[in-house]
């Protein structure tokens, strides 16, 4: 039926969100389908941001423009970009309302990500973190003033974007302290609301490796420590059990929640995960097959973590599926359920790779993970990937 539709009119593909999932999907569809379709991307942020670079921005080795490109650049690939906020999604009528438009679609891809809600925890609005651009810059100012003392790092609630990042920051702070010769008077603690060991969800091998590394660099891990509130005046973090942690520098990841058009829409909200409803095998909406979900907005529903690499591979897969339906047949990339992460641990760069396929199928408790070595040179690999990323999407 869709092939017949294509014969009479150009299909409208609407992509909500210009982050890792949305931008990659738009770019792939433009390459695969070109003039056959109209592609529109909607995002309230005028920029596509490469979030792994936020950590380097807070450490002063990268500037905001290194980490972002205007989404308008997608127009080079004949992709329309609307810098507007998505207000509501009407699946039955195939209609999306934005601040200035009512948009109809033949295919809809929802990649609206997760939003940070620091206001859910008292005192958290005054604690900065490299999970957004503006808070990364504020954190940079705090780190610039840091002269040693107690550092507390960690997520406040699960799920959150990039689970290894709190550990990465801890190592970076230790490295910076060494460089500033204040390491002896710097005490670093990583807290986690659920894990009992570092990187526990990645399996015993990773937990062991990270525990050893943290011991080596004098970083303490405190598991099952859930932040209740922060007393910013007295610089104390209080847990749900009433335990206290004093800090001179706190880097706490705020709670995340799905963006409003999903949260407020019972057709889209999965009651179990609290995020978007999708078929775990195909990434389609279970009822409206022309609707796909990808990235952080579906991560808790399908049982994956929130990370750009997952959104990227889901975009590769969804673009193939849509091209297959529109062209009649199009054999290309299947859903790659793996993740690669290059971490800058200050002293070294460390690569990690995990295959989640068996875990997602329920045949394994943990993903199959590999360490791709630890060398300073891997920091350059991370920088090279940042450049590749923008080139790949925007040309």
């Amino acid at each position: 039926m869709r092939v017949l539709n294509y014969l009479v009119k150009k299909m409208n593909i609407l992509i909500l969100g210009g982050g890792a999932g949305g931008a990659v999907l738009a770019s792939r569809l433009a390459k695969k389908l070109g003039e056959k379709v109209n592609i529109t991307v909607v995002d309230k942020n005028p920029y596509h941001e490469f979030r792994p670079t936020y950590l380097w921005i807070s450490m002063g080795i990268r500037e905001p423009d290194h980490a972002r490109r205007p989404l308008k650049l997608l127009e080079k690939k004949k992709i329309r970009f609307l810098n507007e906020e998505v207000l509501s999604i009407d699946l039955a009528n195939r209609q999306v309302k934005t601040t200035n438009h009512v948009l109809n679609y033949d295919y809809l891809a929802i990649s609206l990500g997760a939003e940070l809600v620091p206001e859910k925890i008292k005192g958290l609005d005054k604690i900065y973190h490299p999970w957004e651009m503006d808070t990364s810059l504020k954190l940079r100012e705090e780190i610039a003033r840091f002269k040693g003392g107690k550092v507390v790092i960690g997520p406040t609630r699960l799920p959150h974007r990039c689970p290894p990042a709190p550990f990465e920051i801890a190592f970076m702070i230790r490295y910076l302290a060494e460089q500033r010769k204040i390491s002896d008077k710097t005490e670093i603690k990583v807290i986690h609301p659920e894990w009992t060991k570092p990187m526990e969800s990645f399996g015993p091998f990773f937990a062991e490796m990270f525990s050893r590394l943290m011991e080596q660099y004098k970083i303490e891990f405190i598991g099952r420590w859930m932040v209740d509130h922060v007393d910013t005046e007295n610089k104390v973090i209080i847990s749900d059990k009433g335990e206290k942690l004093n800090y001179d520098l706190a880097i706490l990841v705020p709670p995340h929640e799905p963006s409003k058009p999903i949260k407020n829409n019972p057709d889209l909200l999965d009651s179990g995960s609290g995020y978007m409803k999708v078929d775990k095998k195909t990434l389609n909406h279970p009822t409206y097959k022309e609707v796909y979900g990808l990235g952080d907005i579906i991560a808790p529903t399908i049982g994956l973590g929130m990370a750009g690499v997952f959104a990227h591979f889901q975009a590769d897969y969804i673009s193939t599926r849509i091209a297959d339906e529109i062209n009649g047949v199009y054999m290309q990339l299947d859903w790659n359920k793996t993740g690669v992460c290059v971490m800058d641990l200050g002293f070294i760069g460390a690569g990690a790779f995990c295959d989640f396929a068996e875990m997602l199928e329920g045949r394994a408790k943990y993903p199959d993970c590999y360490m791709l070595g630890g060398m300073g040179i891997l920091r350059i690999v991370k920088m090279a990937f940042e450049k590749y990323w923008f080139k790949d999407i925007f040309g």
Partner: protein
Amino acid sequence: MMSTLTIKIEGLSPEKSEKLMRLLELLAEKSEVVENMIKILEGVSNIGATELIETLNENTDLAFNLISKKEVMAMLGNLMMLLYLVSNLNHAQIAELAEKTPKCVEKSYEEFKKYPEKKMSLFEMLNMIRSPEFAALLKALMNLLKCMRS
């Protein structure tokens, strides 16, 4: 003596004209390098390598996805660990091994070849086990196993 070269291209913006002028000047200045590069590229093209590069270039969007597979990453991960292992071995010990191993292998191979077609007697075997070398080997092996269990 200066000469004038006139090229007429219409419809260029002043910015693009300036860029082109700069490029032409650079081209004239580095003509020898450019000529050599053209010859090299011609050779590369003649063996079909430019087509190979072009194909890779057209498919860079697939590259990261196709590399991020267990078969590739497990190999890379294990290779990196082997390199890490090698980089952590004691250099002085490795240097001694590098120096002595060829000689020792040669000598032991000679012994191996000239050993007569006969069974070793129990007395000979016990004597060998009581040798300082055998005792040292057992000690070293035990220490290695103890260390691995730690």
